[in-house]
């Protein structure tokens, strides 16, 4: 009896599926490269989830101009060699019209020559400034730069009349890029870096560096890293009784940081995309609509909070959608209309691409938040 029911469901299911294939126009194929596993999985996983969710949503609403989207995702494992293999497969075997990702700067730099040669538009979800500086014809990106994050902190410190600062950066790609920007922009903003310390990505105790900083007479400490290092820094600072205001990078703007740092997180200030404070934004904020939409959808689909990493993929998909709607399905048309994107209010910020700028964001893409009672508080 029950077997029969299953059979009927099975037949129905397939006839519906086949009917779809027969009647609809062929889907628009979009490739995606994300580091779903490996060390950068904290980027790739929410990005893949978001991209899949958005494609499902778009298809449910009837696709783009009547054509469904088909998303083909490959895992790069944060490995440049695998990323290049995957991008070749996307272009040659799957014949995609556009690619979103990769998640990391290293992977992105590795696949850029391939997409440039094949003339397929790529919207990277990685943050490194090298990706779009100098501008490459077929390459765009959605993630905010370190440049903008550093500028945001320095602008705020200027307002607080702070000039003497200490920086504590992690000795990996993220930290050294941040350190470079912190040093570079310090002159522009009149900052004096009195103490310049580093720590290893796997270090479990930073009391020594903080002791040095404590006694150097600075007015602010800026720590640049991704979890768990900054959480250790925040805890150690509390252990040592340091009262100097502590600033962090956008690399820790997830609830995980607050959970790990515990009491130490209290009072920490950091630049972040607007996702984590979506409900605190004023109604007049142009991104408010997209943000609330994303946050609610993500919670509905995956039962966890969406973060700004997933937001990069949201932006990439929606930028593509808008370019296809305005132009055509061919790679060249998509590229041209991507470049003409103006004032697109997404998750990472308000994007305006131009032939000279394929990053599309200003320091407005960040807001400063402070951690109060274990939650984010928007600093106005």
């Amino acid at each position, binding site marked *: 009896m029950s077997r029969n029911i299953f059979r009927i469901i099975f037949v129905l299911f397939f006839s519906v599926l086949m009917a779809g294939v027969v009647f609809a126009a062929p889907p628009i194929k979009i490739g995606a490269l994300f580091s779903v596993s490996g060390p950068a999985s904290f980027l790739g996983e929410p990005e893949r989830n978001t991209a899949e969710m958005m494609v499902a949503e778009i298809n449910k609403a009837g696709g783009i101009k009547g054509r469904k989207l088909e998303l083909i995702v490959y895992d790069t494992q944060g490995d440049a060699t695998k990323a290049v293999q995957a991008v070749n497969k996307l272009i040659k075997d799957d014949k995609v019209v556009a690619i979103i990702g990769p998640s990391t700067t290293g992977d992105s730099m590795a696949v850029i020559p391939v997409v440039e040669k094949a003339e397929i538009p790529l919207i990277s979800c990685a943050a490194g400034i090298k990706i779009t500086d100098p501008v490459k014809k077929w390459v765009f990106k959605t993630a905010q730069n370190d440049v903008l994050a550093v500028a945001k902190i320095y602008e705020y410190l200027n307002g607080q009349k702070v000039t003497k600062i200490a920086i504590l950066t992690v000795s990996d790609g993220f930290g050294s890029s941040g350190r470079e920007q912190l040093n570079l922009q310090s002159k522009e903003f009149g900052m004096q870096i009195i103490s310049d310390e580093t720590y290893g990505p796997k270090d479990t105790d930073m009391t020594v560096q903080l002791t040095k900083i404590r006694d150097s007479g600075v007015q602010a400490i800026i720590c640049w890293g991704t979890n768990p290092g900054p959480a250790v820094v925040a805890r150690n600072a509390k*252990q040592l009784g340091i009262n100097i205001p502590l600033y962090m990078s956008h690399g820790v703007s997830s609830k995980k940081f607050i959970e790990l740092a515990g009491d130490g997180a209290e009072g920490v200030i950091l630049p972040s995309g607007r996702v984590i404070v979506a409900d605190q934004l004023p109604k007049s904020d142009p991104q408010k609509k997209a943000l609330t939409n994303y946050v609610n959808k993500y919670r509905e689909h995956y039962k966890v909070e969406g973060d700004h990493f997933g937001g990069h993929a949201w932006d990439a998909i929606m930028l593509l959608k808008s370019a296809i709607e305005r132009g055509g399905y061919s790679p060249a048309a998509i590229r041209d209309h991507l470049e003409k994107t103006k004032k697109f209010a997404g998750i990472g910020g308000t994007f305006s691409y131009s032939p000279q700028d394929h990053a599309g964001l200003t320091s407005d893409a960040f807001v400063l938040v402070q951690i109060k009672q274990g939650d984010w508080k928007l600093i106005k």
Partner: protein
Amino acid sequence: MNSSRQLFQYILSGLSNGAIYALIGFGFAIIHNATGIINFAQGEFVMLGGMLTVFFLAILNLPLVPAIVLAIIISTIVGMTFERLAIRPLKNAKPLRLIIITIGASIFIRGAAMLIWGKDTHALPAFSGNDPLHIAGATILPQHLWIFAVTILIIIASRIFFNYSIVGKAMRACAYNSQAASLVGIDVKIMVLLSFVISSAIGSMAGIIIAPLTMTSYDVGIMLGLKGFCAVIIGGMSSGLGTLLGGLLLGLLEALGAGFISASYKDAIAFIILLLILIIRPEGLFKKKEMERV
């Protein structure tokens, strides 16, 4: 005044980290002393202890003490299984082959932990609060005192066990000459198994009491394991005072190096010391040269 306060904090930070290294080092020493092999999966037991405790606390909502006890028991079972499945079936294998197997096992355990618990970092609550204790201008956390206390307890217990109990003496006999040991009626297999039991239990305990400070994730075992290995090499593979001194010395040099030279060289300092000791004094800093009687 500032510099002396700084120096004191460096010393205190160094000693507290050193105690962690020593604690992890003991696990290496015990297996080495019973079997002559170096168990590079030791760091993974440290990870298992921390991760299992987090798992029992957060997911099964157990109170702290039962969670710790369960975590130690399960890590010990993993240690026993490892010995039964990967070490014992190889009869008369050379130590080098066994060492390579332990490296394989460590990769396996790490991978399994990643699949089961994911890649997130987790924090354990401190056993007795997070209010720092002030000692002459420098601070340490109550958790550091736990680490010192457990380290000292383990030294005393292992000294009594290896020097005064029959089983402990039998284990030492196996390491010295397993053939002769079996001739006088010692079951070598049981002794090897026992050494894995003890060292995985100590390793997981170390992982649990350091987790509130260092936090824990599937891959903490690599670095902590290597630092523990450094400590035990400096200490000449002793399961007592030597390893403690080795760990403390390592921690101190790291902290002073980071404080006065640059924190960028912190890990380099540890591994340069390791290489120097292995080249110049492979028997450890505190041990008399062993005499081989012919």
